[in-house]
C-alpha cells in the first residue's frame, strides 16, 4: 500500500517536472495525410479574416506538400500576448502576423528568424518587387525581418448624405484642420449628431503627426540610433491636441471609445458624419452603409502640405523554435502571400493595399477600384507620401505602452484637461517606459 502510494506521488511529480521542462529538438509537424503543417496566427476578424481563410484555402489547394492552418487569435495586442507565452519554443506557431509597431520588439524578441536569410537564399524572390514606401517601414538597417502583409493607412470616411443635409458639397471633403472644424459645426447644427470623431487609438495620432512631418522620437524616429526622447509634445503634437480640444469644447466631436467596431457602428448608424479609420475598413464601410460613403485624405493643419502617412497594418514573421523544414514550408507560404495576384485579391477584398506595385495592374483589382472609387484615396495618399524619417514611422520596443499613454492623454483631454500639460506628461511617461525597456533588455 505504502509503495503504491509513493509510486503515485512519484508519477504526479514527474508529470509536473516533464511539463516544466520538455522542448528538445523540434519535430516537423505533419498532417494526417502527410503534408507539412504550417500554423499561421493572424489578427484579422470579420471581412479580412474571411479573406485570409480564402487565401489560405487557395494556397492549400494549389500544391500538395504543405498545409497551412490559419488561426485567428484576436486583436494584434492579444495575439502578441499569446505569442509571448510560447515564443521561442516549438509550441510557437510557424508564422505570426504582428502589427507594424511591434517590429522593433519582434526583431529583438529572440522568437524569430529574420526573413532576409531566406530571401537571400532564394533566387526567385526579390524585394525589388515591393512598394518602396512599405519597405521603408519594415527594413531595419537594410534587412527585411518580416514580410509586409496587410498594409493600410489612415483616411477619413464621411457620410455624403449628411453632407447634403447640412448643405455641404459631398464632393468637397475638408482637407485642413479648420475646415474639419467648420464642417463639423455645420453638420452638428443640421443633424444634431457628432460632426467628427477619431477612434481613441494611438495610431491616428501618429498618422496626424507624420502628415505634418513631425517626429515621434528623437534620433530620426529611432531609426538612426536607439531613441531616448519622445517628441510628441512639440508644436505638431500640440496642434493635434488643440484641434481636438476645440471641437470637443464646441460639442461637435464624438467620443466612441477605443473599440474599432464601436466607431464603425456609430458611423453606420449615422451618429457621426466624418471619422478617421484604417483603409482596411473601406470595403466594410461602403457595403455596410445605407448612405453614400466618401473617402478623403487625412487632414493637415492650415497652410501646410500633407507629408503623407506612415505605413500601417502588419507583417508576417517566421518563428525560430520550429524545425527547419517547417520554416522552409512557411517561407513558401509567405512568398505566396506576396505574389502580386494574391495581393490583388486580398486588397480588393479588404481595402488594404497591395505590397507590390505590380498588383495594381491586375484586372481583379482594377475592376474593384472602378466599382469602389473610395478605395483609391488610400492608394493616392500612399503614393503621394515622401519617404522621410517622419513618414517611415517611429521604432521603439515599447510601442504598445506608448500608444496606451497617448490614448490616456486623449481621454483626459476630452475630460477638459490642459493639452500642453498632458502632452508633456505623456512624453515624459514614454521616455520612462523606454528607459525601463532598455534596462530590461540589459542595454
Amino acid at each position: 500500500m505504502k509503495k503504491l502510494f509513493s509510486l503515485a506521488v512519484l508519477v504526479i511529480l514527474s508529470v509536473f517536472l516533464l511539463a516544466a521542462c520538455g522542448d528538445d529538438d523540434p519535430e516537423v509537424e505533419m498532417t494526417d495525410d502527410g503534408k507539412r503543417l504550417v500554423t499561421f496566427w493572424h489578427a484579422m476578424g470579420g471581412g479580412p479574416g474571411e479573406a485570409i481563410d480564402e487565401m489560405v484555402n487557395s494556397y492549400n489547394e494549389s500544391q500538395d506538400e504543405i498545409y497551412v492552418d490559419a488561426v485567428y487569435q484576436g486583436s494584434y495586442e492579444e495575439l502578441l500576448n499569446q505569442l509571448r507565452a510560447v515564443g521561442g519554443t516549438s509550441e510557437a506557431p510557424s508564422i505570426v502576423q504582428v502589427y507594424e509597431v511591434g517590429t522593433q520588439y519582434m526583431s529583438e524578441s529572440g522568437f524569430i528568424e529574420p526573413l532576409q536569410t531566406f530571401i537571400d537564399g532564394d533566387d526567385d524572390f526579390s524585394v525589388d518587387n515591393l512598394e518602396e514606401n512599405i519597405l521603408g517601414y519594415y527594413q531595419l538597417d537594410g534587412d527585411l525581418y518580416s514580410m509586409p502583409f496587410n498594409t493600410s493607412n489612415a483616411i477619413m470616411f464621411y457620410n455624403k448624405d449628411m453632407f447634403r443635409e447640412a448643405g455641404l458639397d459631398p464632393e468637397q471633403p475638408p482637407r485642413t484642420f479648420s475646415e474639419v472644424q467648420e464642417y463639423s459645426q455645420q453638420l452638428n447644427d443640421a443633424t444634431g449628431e457628432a460632426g467628427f470623431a477619431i477612434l481613441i487609438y494611438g495610431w491616428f495620432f501618429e498618422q496626424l503627426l507624420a502628415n505634418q512631418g513631425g517626429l515621434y522620437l528623437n534620433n530620426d524616429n529611432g531609426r538612426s540610433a536607439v531613441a531616448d526622447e519622445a517628441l510628441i509634445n512639440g508644436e505638431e503634437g500640440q496642434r493635434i491636441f488643440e484641434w481636438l480640444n476645440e471641437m470637443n469644447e464646441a460639442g461637435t466631436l464624438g467620443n466612441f471609445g477605443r473599440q474599432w467596431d464601436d466607431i464603425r457602428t456609430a458611423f453606420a448608424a449615422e451618429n457621426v458624419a466624418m471619422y478617421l479609420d484604417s483603409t482596411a475598413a473601406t470595403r466594410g464601410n461602403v457595403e455596410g452603409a445605407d448612405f453614400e460613403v466618401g473617402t478623403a485624405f487625412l487632414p493637415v493643419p492650415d497652410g501646410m502640405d500633407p507629408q503623407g502617412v506612415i505605413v500601417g497594418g502588419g507583417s508576417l514573421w517566421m518563428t525560430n523554435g520550429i524545425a527547419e523544414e517547417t520554416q522552409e514550408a512557411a517561407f513558401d507560404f509567405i512568398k505566396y502571400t506576396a505574389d502580386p495576384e494574391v495581393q490583388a485579391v486580398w486588397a480588393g477584398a479588404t481595402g488594404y493595399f497591395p505590397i507590390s506595385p505590380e498588383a495594381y495592374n491586375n484586372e481583379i483589382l482594377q475592376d474593384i477600384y472602378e466599382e469602389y472609387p473610395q478605395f483609391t484615396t488610400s492608394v493616392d495618399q500612399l503614393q503621394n507620401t515622401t519617404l522621410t524619417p517622419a513618414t517611415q514611422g517611429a521604432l521603439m520596443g515599447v510601442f504598445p505602452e506608448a500608444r496606451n499613454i497617448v490614448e490616456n492623454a486623449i481621454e483626459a483631454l476630452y475630460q477638459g484637461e490642459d493639452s500642453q500639460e498632458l502632452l508633456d506628461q505623456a512624453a515624459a511617461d514614454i521616455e520612462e517606459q523606454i528607459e525601463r525597456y532598455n534596462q530590461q533588455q540589459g542595454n
Partner: protein
Amino acid sequence: MTDQVAAKQLMDPASRDKEKRKKARKNFWTAMLFMLPAIAIIGFFLFYPMFKTLYFSFFVVNSRGDTISFAGLSNYLYLWESSTFRTSMKATFLFALYTVPTTILVSLFLAVITNEKVRGIPFFRVAFSSTLGVSVAAGATIWLILLHPSVGVFNNLLAGIGFDRIGWLTSSTWALISVSITTIWMNLGFNFIILLGGLQNISEELYESARVDGAGYWTQLFKITIPLLSPTLFFVSVVTIINSFQSFGQVDILTGGGPNNSTNLIVYSIYREAFESGFFGTASAQAMILFALVLILTIIQFKFVEKKVHYQ
C-alpha cells in the same frame, strides 16, 4: 505481555518521553504522507507561484521571465511614485465601495422578500439567482451591448425620451459606475443564494414566539432575522470584498482599463503590466501589494467585525 507492560512501567521518565516523541514523529510523517498529494498540488500551483512572485518583485525581469538584475525595493519605489498605480489603487477602493455594500444590501433585500411563503415564489428564487449561472465573459458582453455608445439600449432609451446620450463606457466619470453596476448584477445571484440559505436556517419557532409576544415585522427583522443571519452576512461580506479586489473579466471586456485609467483596477493593472508591457518585476510587486491588502482587510474583518457576529 504482562512482562512487557511491567518493563514499560519500570522505564525511567526520560526514555518514556523519548518513546513518545518517536511515536509523535512517526505519526507526523504518516500524516504528511497522506497529505502529500494535496501539498504537492497546492505547493505547485499556489505556493511556488506565490514565492516566485515575491522573488520577481525584487528583480528586473524580462518579458520571458528571466531575471536580469537585482532591483532591491526599486520596483516598489517605482509604484510608490507612479501616478498610474495611485489612480488604479484609487479606482480599486472606489470600486469596492460602490459594489460591496450595494451587492449585499440588494441581495439581502431580495432574499428577505423571497423568503416569504407565497405562491409562485420558486420562480422568483430561480430568477434572482440566475446570474450565478452567467459567466463573467457572457455577463459583461450583455452589458457591453446595453451600454454601447451609439446603438446601446440605454442610450437609445435616453435619446428616445429626449435626454443626451451618456458615455457609459467612454467617459471617465461614468465608466467606473458602469463597471460597478455590471459587477453588482453579476454578484447578486451568488449572494442571494447564500443569504436565502441562511434565512431558511432560522427556526420558524422563533418567529412564532416573537409574534405571540407581539413583535411586528420590523422588530422581527432586526431582532431575529439580522442577528441570526449575521454569520452568513459575515461570510458574504468577506467573499464579496475579496472578489471585488480581484475583479478582472468585466474590466477587460467593458473598458480595457480606460478611459484614462479610470477603471484600471489593480488586477487588470497587474495583467497589463505583465502581459502587455512585459514588466514582470513591477507587476509582481503590484501583486504582492494586492496580496498584502486583501490579507490585512480579511484580518481586520475577522478581528473586529466577527465579534459582532452572533453564532447559535
